[in-house]
Every structure is written in C-alpha cells, then in structure tokens.
C-alpha cells in the first residue's frame, strides 16, 4: 500500500496538478478568523435574491416541482431567455436548439471548453480575468495564452494586442466583459475590432457576459453575438447570479450554434443531467418579473461605485473608473508593496479584506480588487481604514 503523500500527488491527473492553487485562499483563512473585518473581497452581491423570486421557488416546491427537467432546461425558461436576447440585442437564437441551461456560468464555461478544445489547442485569454478561465482551459486539455490588458487603455483589449499572441494553434478567444476584476467594459468600436480579428483567424469566441446587466454611465453593454456575423462563432455565457443576486442558486446558460450546443448538451447530460429545477423555476420568475428589482440593485451599485472611486482618487491612488460589474481595481504601486503584500498587510493592520490583483493573472500585479457589493456604511468605513493604512504603512 502506498502511503506517502508525494506518491499520491504523482497519481493525480496531470491537468489537476498543472493548476495553480487559488491566490485568495490565504486571505480567506485570515479574514475568516477576524471579528471586525470589513470585506471588500466578496465576489457576489450583498443583496439577498428579491423576494418575488424566492417566493416563486417556494410556490414551485409546494406545487411539486422536484423532478428532473429536460437536459437543456425547462422550455419556458429557454423561451424566456431567447425572447430576452431578441428583445434586447436583436439576436436570433432558437430556444430549442441554441440554448442550454447550466449549473451557473461556471459549468457552462467548463463544458464549452471541453466541447471545443483538442489537446494542445490554444485559448487567448485577456488578463486580468476571472480565476476560472485558465483552470478550465487546462482541465479541458487546452493551453491558456494570457494577453495582458493595459491600465492606460482602461483595461480594454485591442485587436493589435491579440494579434501578438495568435498562433496556428489558437482556436478560442475567451473574453469576459464587463470584467471581473477590473470593472472594464468594451465599447462597440473595441468589440468590432475584436470581431474582425476573430473572423480573420476563424476563432471560436467564448464571451462570458455574466456582468452584462451591470454597466454604469452612458456606455451600455454590447452583447458580442449581436455584432454582425458573430452569433455563429460565439458561445455566449450568462446567468442569474450577479444581476438577480442569485449566486447560490447555481443557474446560468450558454447560447451558441446548434452543433456546439448539442455537443455541450452531450457532456451536460452525462455529468450534470440538468440544472436544479428549483433554480430554473426561480429563473423564469426573474426573467418575467425581476427586471425592476434588478434595476434598483444596479442603481445602488452605481452610487457605491461613485463613492468608492471618489474615495480612492482622494487618497491619491491611481485608479481607473470602473464602468461595469461591481469591482474597482486601484493601483497600489505607489505604496511600494506588491499586491499580495499590500492585501496581507492591510488585512492585518486595518482588518480590511480585498483581493490582490495578481490572483487574476500576472498583469494584475500592482493592483488590488475591491468589491463594492457591500453597504455604503461599510464602504465608507473601509475607505477610512485604507486611508489610515496608507498614511502609516507606505514603504
């Protein structure tokens, strides 16, 4: 019998071993021990799911909605999703063949990668980006290729930057705007250039638009598949977690061409079978009657965004004004700390938790991610503590 730890390590899948451990675990462990910690490190809404959505789920349970659903999801949910996208973005997804309801965008991303990647295929990933992008690529046998987005360009990615990293092996471009962790969005002009690039190299574009409803100011979110000719080559991912404060329900969806959705459904039916029916019932209610609650939450995020942005600017930190999601990504280079050191020192000294930018890709170094999905009082107090920290701790 083999008992040595190292032997077990060797027996694990090479894909799993190739994945770096999470860069935020350490902060979670420290912060979870503290009593008076204010966390700007949370990647989910502070709102509880609107009551009408919760209530519809309770009613669904009373009515006996406890079974499996169709693998692709309840027809009424897929119809609502198709109608929403047609209404808002003028897309033409067939609800029956082009949509798959998944267990959050996380599952959708995983099976999208598994459906399209062959071993060694390269995936272009603009960074900083959500922590799963690299991992899902590796687990699906692909090779992640980071394309750094620049702060001086408001963390938007350009076609020229993508061109620098494209090779004969590039198969997929994976983008996530509005962006976690930077709060960046892409303008229509930016995206049209990316669309041309995708066309030129015949790439599949996976567009994670989970924060699509959360944009602020004049610029509205542009759905990538609504761009001319892009619906066919795009796998669009979205869900209910952020816009409707439904993270724990684990419900999302993927939209794409018939062949890709059929392939993803094949994986989904053998691994997940279907998304939980309770969450699907709630999601139908969210799409039918939830928009007003969503808009109220977005208005509240917007106020907090202005408050926290103003706070960082007044402290003298270099900071890009976020245009979407609920994160702000100030530069902490002026302090002399690395982002990891800064996050740890701030947590120890002032009990404010945030996430080092390096957790979202190497080019996130020098920044920290602060979530403003928390109350105005807490944001204010956190800003005071950070200001105090800067006064006493800058190297």
């Amino acid at each position: 019998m083999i008992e040595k730890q190292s032997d077990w390590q060797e027996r694990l899948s090479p894909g799993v071993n190739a994945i770096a451990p999470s860069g935020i675990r350490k902060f979670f462990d420290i912060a979870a021990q503290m009593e008076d910690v204010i966390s700007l490190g949370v990647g989910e809404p502070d709102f509880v799911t609107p009551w009408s959505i919760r209530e519809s789920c309770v009613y669904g349970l009373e009515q006996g909605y406890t079974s499996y659903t169709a693998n692709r999801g309840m027809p009424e949910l897929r119809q609502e999703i198709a109608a929403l996208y047609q209404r808002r973005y003028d897309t033409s997804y067939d609800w029956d063949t082009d949509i798959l309801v998944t267990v959050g965008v996380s599952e959708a991303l995983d099976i999208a990668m598994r459906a399209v990647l062959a071993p060694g295929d390269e995936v272009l990933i603009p960074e900083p980006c959500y922590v799963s992008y690299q991992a899902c690529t590796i687990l699906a046998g692909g090779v992640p290729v980071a394309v750094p987005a620049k702060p001086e360009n408001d963390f938007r990615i350009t076609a020229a930057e993508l061109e620098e990293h494209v090779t004969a092996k590039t198969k997929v471009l994976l983008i996530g705007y509005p962006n976690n962790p930077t709060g960046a969005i892409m303008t229509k002009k930016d995206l049209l250039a990316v669309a041309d690039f995708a066309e030129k190299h015949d790439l599949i574009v996976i567009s994670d638009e989970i924060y699509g409803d959360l944009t602020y100011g004049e610029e509205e979110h542009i759905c990538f598949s609504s761009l001319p000719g892009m619906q066919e080559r795009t796998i669009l991912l979205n869900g209910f977690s952020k816009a409707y404060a439904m993270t724990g329900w684990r419900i999302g969806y993927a939209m794409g061409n018939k062949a890709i959705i059929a392939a993803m459904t094949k994986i989904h039916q053998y691994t997940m079978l279907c998304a939980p029916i309770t969450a699907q019932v709630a999601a139908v209610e969210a799409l039918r009657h939830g928009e007003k609650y969503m808009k109220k939450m977005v208005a509240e995020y917007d106020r907090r965004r202005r408050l926290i942005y103003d706070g960082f600017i007044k402290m003298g930190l270099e900071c890009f004004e976020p245009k979407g999601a609920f994160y702000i990504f100030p530069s902490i280079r002026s302090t002399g700390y690395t982002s990891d050191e800064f996050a740890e020192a701030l947590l120890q000294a002032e009990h404010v938790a945030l996430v080092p930018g390096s957790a979202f890709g190497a080019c996130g170094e020098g920044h920290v991610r602060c979530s403003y999905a928390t109350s105005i009082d807490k944001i204010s107090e956190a800003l005071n503590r950070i200001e105090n920290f800067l006064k006493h701790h800058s190297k």
Partner: protein
Amino acid sequence: MRELLELLEHDARRPVSELASMLQRSEYEVEKNIKDLEKNKIILSYNTLINWEKFGDDTVTAVIEINLTPQREVGFDAIAERIYRFDEVRTVYLMSGSFDLLVIIEGKSLKDVANFVATRLSTIEGVTATRSHFMLKPYKKDGVIINDEERDRRLVVSP
C-alpha cells in the same frame, strides 16, 4: 434631484461629503440642493424610525375608520383639518371605499385612545360614524422590517 431625495429618504444622516461623492456634485451644491428642497417643502422633516416597544414603551396604536358628511365648498378638508390638528393623531388619509378618513392614533393606553375617539373625534360635527381597530403587532413600517433576521451569509472572500 430624485437620486438625492432617494438617498435622504433612506438615510437622512448621510454626511454631505458622501452624498456629494455618490451624486458626483460638490458638497456646496448638495447642501444648497437640500436647503432648496426644505424651503420648497419637498423635504418635510427628518424623522427617525424607532422601535419604541423594544425600548420599553407600551404605547397603544389604533387605526380609526371615520365616515363624514362632506361640507359645501370644502368637502372633507375642513373636518380633516379639525382632526389632524390633534397631537394624538399621527396620520390622516382621505380614502375611497366604505369610509372616508383613515386616522392613526397613538395613546398611552387603550382607555386613553378610546376616550379620545369617544369624546374628541365622534363629537365633531360631520362625523357620522367611527370604527376603531387596535394594532397588535407591527411587522413592517415605512418599508422597514421591524425584526429583520436576514444577515450577510456570504463567504468573507470569494473570486
């Protein structure tokens, strides 16, 4: 202006500096806006919602439905004024339906409130009937849930 009002309605004690940041205006401008809103009686007063029961007070609240005979020229307004001028009367609404005025009264005791209705309200000329309902337990007031047990259940750090 609407956004400023919404912020104040939710929390009138927000410092002007915070309001200014959130509204992307100068502090001077925000203060001036508030002054104007007060002057124009759009902002009427800044109240505090207090859970008096928790503090230890045993006040009695009654909802009174009142039927009136409207008066020439002024309709219900003159009688409504006679009623809402009383300090004991907290709220007065003109209603459609089977009664005319909905009046909320607070008093020290049941007897206190009953006495006020019998001697002060019912005797007003034009009041034809009153029906009193005593409030047993408040669950939600002005949009605020009285005993809200919902709390932040999120992980302290997450991606």
